[in-house]
């Protein structure tokens, strides 16, 4: 159902403690994503975006607070339950190494259905039509090594959507793509999220990709620093490639932290991938 809240975090925190070095990577984050809503997660390197995503993908357990997907508390599940939940309810596109190298494009997409014990002609047809939709009709039988970076990411996107997950997550899916390819990939990603009524979150360093999302959440030091929902503001953000121009052009909202210096320091390397 549209507008139903699918994904919700309540004061979610993640503290890393490696050899006495304590880092609060995610700091009491409250987030809500509705069905059919595509959220862009931005912020400087080390601000906790990937950590946030990993917790939502049940790959990492929260230290405090709670995360809910489809009303289920992720923290209350056992590891085995989380694995099952992950393959049924979540679709994931990673920055790289997305595909199984010895499976063709089609097999990579089908893999997600096979994991969910859905085999057969129907599954295959579904995978073929999704890949066709993503412009890969004549690439289905190619191995990943025979595909360009953009094509590989489109296969990964198909795989993240094929099993009708409630939540679709992507961590810098365009990091290795040129601008044109990145635009193509994210646009179709956004369309598919909207059409399928799924909750989507994409982490990106490329602010121009924000023009395809419905809401931009900016993280700084593990906290949500700003949430932009206004279309014009999002477009304005997406239109600038240099972040430090932002405060002058965009009126600062209450929810944002108007710390200009911090912005400059943290957000200027807008195109630095990791």
């Amino acid at each position, binding site marked *: 159902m549209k507008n139903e809240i699918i994904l919700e975090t309540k004061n979610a925190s993640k503290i890393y403690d490696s050899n006495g070095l304590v880092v609060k990577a995610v700091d009491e984050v409250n987030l809500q994503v509705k069905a059919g809503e595509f959220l862009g997660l931005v912020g400087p390197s080390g601000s906790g975006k990937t950590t946030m995503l990993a917790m939502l993908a049940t*790959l990492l357990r929260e230290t405090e607070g709670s995360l809910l997907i489809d009303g289920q508390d992720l923290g209350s599940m056992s590891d085995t339950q989380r*694995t099952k*939940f992950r*393959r049924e309810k979540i679709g994931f596109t990673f920055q790289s190494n997305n595909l199984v190298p*010895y499976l063709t494009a089609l097999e990579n997409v089908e893999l997600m259905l096979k994991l969910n014990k859905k085999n057969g002609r129907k599954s295959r047809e579904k995978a073929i039509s999704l890949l066709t939709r993503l412009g890969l009709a004549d690439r289905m039988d190619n191995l990943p090594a025979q595909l360009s970076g953009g094509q590989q990411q489109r296969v990964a996107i198909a795989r993240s959507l094929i099993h009708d997950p409630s939540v679709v997550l992507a961590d810098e899916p365009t990091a290795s793509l040129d601008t044109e390819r990145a635009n193509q990939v994210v646009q179709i990603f956004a369309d598919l999220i909207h059409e399928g009524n799924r909750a989507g979150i994409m982490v990106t360093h490329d602010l121009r990709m924000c023009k395809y999302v419905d809401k931009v959440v900016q993280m700084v030091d593990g906290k949500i620093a700003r949430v932009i929902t206004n279309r014009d503001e999002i477009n304005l953000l997406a239109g600038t490639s240099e972040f430090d121009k932002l405060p002058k052009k965009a009126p600062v909202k209450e929810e944002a932290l108007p710390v200009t210096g911090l912005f400059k320091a943290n957000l200027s390397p807008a195109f630095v991938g990791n």
Partner: protein
Amino acid sequence: MSIYLSLKEVWRNKGRFFLFSMVIALIAVLVLFTAGLGEGLASANKEYLEKLDATLLVFQEGTDYSTIESRLDYQKVKRVQRVDGVAAAGPIGFSNLEIVLDEGLDSVDVSFIGVEVGKPGLPAPIIGETIRSRQSKVVMIDQRIAETANIGIGDYITVKSTQGTDDKFYDLRVTGISDGQQYFFQPSIFVSLAIWDKYRPKADANIYSSRPVTNVIAVQLEDPNAVENITQLIPAMVKDVEVSDIKTAYESAPGYSAQQNTLNTMKAFTFLIGVLVIGGFFQIQTLQKVPQIGMLKAIGTPNPVVAVASILQIIFVTIFGVALGGLAVLGLVLGMPSSVPILFTGTSVLIAVGSLLLIGPLGGLVSIRVALKVEPLTALGM
């Protein structure tokens, strides 16, 4: 799911996995050959004794069941024969000499075995007749000699025997041909004990010895279950002898156990090398696959599926390699001259193949551990 993943991976990397199967095939060839050689050498050593139609052997006391060292007075045969429970006792004399062939052909070294006509010790002929008379100059020969020297029933063979400082030549008529009867790595020819004592190579002094001497006495039992009993009884009734069963006898042959131990050590080491090579290969391969395994887990592939997939793959490759090696050995053996002492018995091949098939899974244990320990978080570069 595991089967699907592992089959796809092997199939799409045919070249690499094929090469690796070849390594396993070579290891299989080595192990199978060592096993065959072990059997072959053992058989060349003991074939005659193993096929002997007797249960026990009587030796001179204190010779540790060595057929060469043991010397028994002919009188002892009668005494052993008289022991309760002994069905038949036959003296056997061992010696070596050469069969001289036509000009231009190499002579053949053989075991020259003297037996009592009608008593245990003489194998049954597969062609021709057995030896019937004590005094007639007839001989029964091993099939192998018949083949290599092209000798048939009714032919005469000439044997060369060194007695004292002279080389003596004797003619013998072939009356029968037995199956393979190797002893001490040589095929055997059989004559009556009287002929044997006359013709065998000996030092000067013994030439005119009137009392025949034999090496051992083969004993058949009335009750095959009375082995232990009679083994005790004979030395009690007959002076200066020791008794063993056939197996103990050939295992005590000089060099027999040393040789078998060497071959077993070789087998064990080849096996170990196999485990390490396969272990190393699959571990490196698994380490290279860490990002991919992380990704599979991150999209919800259960841990057992990942582990089973990696072990299955190793099993496929091992089975294929062992089959390949087995075929290669088969081809090689068929094309090999019969003089090579390689013999494949059902059990030795089964044991070798069985242990070879274990090489893969054993070597793969480490890589499964690696695969299991991969964190799905690696997919996110964390």
